């Protein structure tokens, strides 16, 4: 049903010539550029879209421009040109509305290390205008969600690295942001904590929060994210669905550990087999071929495989191809 106001159909009014659905995106970046005071250009007019509810990976090598882009979105860095819209709000003209929508988890610890965990969360709630009693309720919820409730009265500098990172996630969630930006949230934490943080991030995303993740752990991006952009030298060089990107992989490489020593590498038609040492092979398996034919042929030649592992993460291979690593 059309909405009508003083006889005009609202649908007929088009104040701004923007593409359909533009305002519904969690993030819409157009021609964003940044040149620092020393003349270094970190971003060369990038475009980027992130849909509402997405779990999005923004990847790139060090110095590619990821942190600059995130800094601009979070109002930590002034933009030089272009536009940023968050859920339809313009970053320059509607800064406060944009900030209300965003929760930010930075790369480095940036809370007051002399404050208690609970005070850090309560202060942040206060900055968002949340009254104290309500802030207490929200702080409890966030700290329990991050398994930090028992540490709420601990002075934050006494926490472990993993706990400090979870404090930053709890702090970013206290005002119920619609868009959560995680800038290398698991850097420097052990694999066990990293896996538990992945689970927490999945839960947050499942609750309807859009997440943008930057990480150097490409396994993390592959495991968590549905869409991906790769940035290099201040330019977006890839922007697609994760599944589409991974489908581009033509050959997967595996390492096979053998039961017996080999004098020379076996020849298996259709597969690229390299002998790494007397009991280890590296095999390139083309996407259209499976494992069955390989193992049948190895068995026929009397070669017994005891274990197998990926040579590298699939996304890592693609990433290195794309950024020329």
């Amino acid at each position, binding site marked *: 049903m059309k909405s009508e106001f003083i006889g005009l159909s609202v649908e007929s009014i088009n104040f701004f010539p923007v593409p359909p659905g533009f305002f519904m995106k969690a993030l819409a970046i157009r021609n964003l550029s940044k040149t620092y005071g020393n003349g270094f250009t970190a971003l060369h007019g990038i475009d980027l879209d992130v849909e509402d509810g997405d779990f999005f990976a923004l990847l790139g090598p060090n110095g590619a421009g990821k942190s600059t882009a995130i800094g601009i979105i*979070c109002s930590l860095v*002034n933009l030089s040109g272009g536009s940023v819209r968050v859920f339809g709000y313009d970053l320059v003209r509607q800064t406060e509305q944009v900030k209300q929508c965003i929760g*930010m988890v*930075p790369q480095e610890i940036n809370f007051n290390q002399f404050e208690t965990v609970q005070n850090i969360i309560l202060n942040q709630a206060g900055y968002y205008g949340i009254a104290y009693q309500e802030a207490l309720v929200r702080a409890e919820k966030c700290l329990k969600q991050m398994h930090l409730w028992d540490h709420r009265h601990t002075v934050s500098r006494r926490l472990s690295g993993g706990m400090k990172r979870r404090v930053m996630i709890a702090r970013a969630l206290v005002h119920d942001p619609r868009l959560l930006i995680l800038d290398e949230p698991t850097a420097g934490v052990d694999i066990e904590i990293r896996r538990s943080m992945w689970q927490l991030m999945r839960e947050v995303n499942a609750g309807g929060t859009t997440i943008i993740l930057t990480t150097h752990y490409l396994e993390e991006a592959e495991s968590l994210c549905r869409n991906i952009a790769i940035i290099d030298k201040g330019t977006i060089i890839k922007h697609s669905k994760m599944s589409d990107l991974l489908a581009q992989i033509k050959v997967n490489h595996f390492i096979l550990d053998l039961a017996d020593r080999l004098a020379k590498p076996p020849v298996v038609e259709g597969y690229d087999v390299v002998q790494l040492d007397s009991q280890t092979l590296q095999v390139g398996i083309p996407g259209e071929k499976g494992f069955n034919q390989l193992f049948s042929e190895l068995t026929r030649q009397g070669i017994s495989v005891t274990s197998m592992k990926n040579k590298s993460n699939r996304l890592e291979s693609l990433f290195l191809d794309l950024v020329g690593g």
Partner: protein
Amino acid sequence: MGYRIALLTIMSKEVRRFMRIWPQTMLPPAITTALYFLIFGTLMGQRIGDISGASYMDYIVPGIILMSVISHSYANVVSSFYSTKFQRHIEELLVSPVPNWVILAGYVGGGVCRGLLVGSVVIGISLLFTSISVSHWGLSCLIFFLTAVLFALAGFINAVFADSFDDISIIPNFILTPLTYLGGVFYSVEMLPELWQNISLANPILYIVNSFRYGLIGVTDVDITLALTMIVGFIVTLISLSLYLLDKGIGIKQ
């Protein structure tokens, strides 16, 4: 509503900060001023005699109270805001929907609280050495408050420009302290040669100290209306400059 909560959050954080380290923030001024009153007021003051009809002890009390207000309101904001930048938790504020004027008011409010609290401690100490019969309550309270605001603002600007811990000590040590001591705290400018009297009139702290002295004991070397106009003028200028710096992100954004 939201801004009021944000403002109270910043201010209460600031007050908690200096109260948490009260042996560093509250105790030293009490001891230092007690020594000032003992040495300059009681021991030397008896030999110096009266100035402008007031005993030397009574004459120096207003200046010593304001010295503590000036140094502590300045020190609170410059050290707190610079630490906020240094430890990067300024980012907590920058990502939040807190307007720049609330950030400024919160930090300046914290500095004013410390300045007034330390000033009150010093007033308490002074009452151990002399009795103050206040000549103009309104003017005294106004100058007491405006001085704290003015120097809290100055501390904020210092912190915005500071790139190292050295930068937050240079101005207090090499500019603020000399200006305060030469601002007629311990003497009347009429005691100076004419050339130095004229040079002293360029020192804004002279006007502040004398207007507070007039409020407390009714004695001044300067015109009170001019002094008040200067103080308010400086405050308006520093507020405008601070908001400009925050708006442009100078010293806090790239």
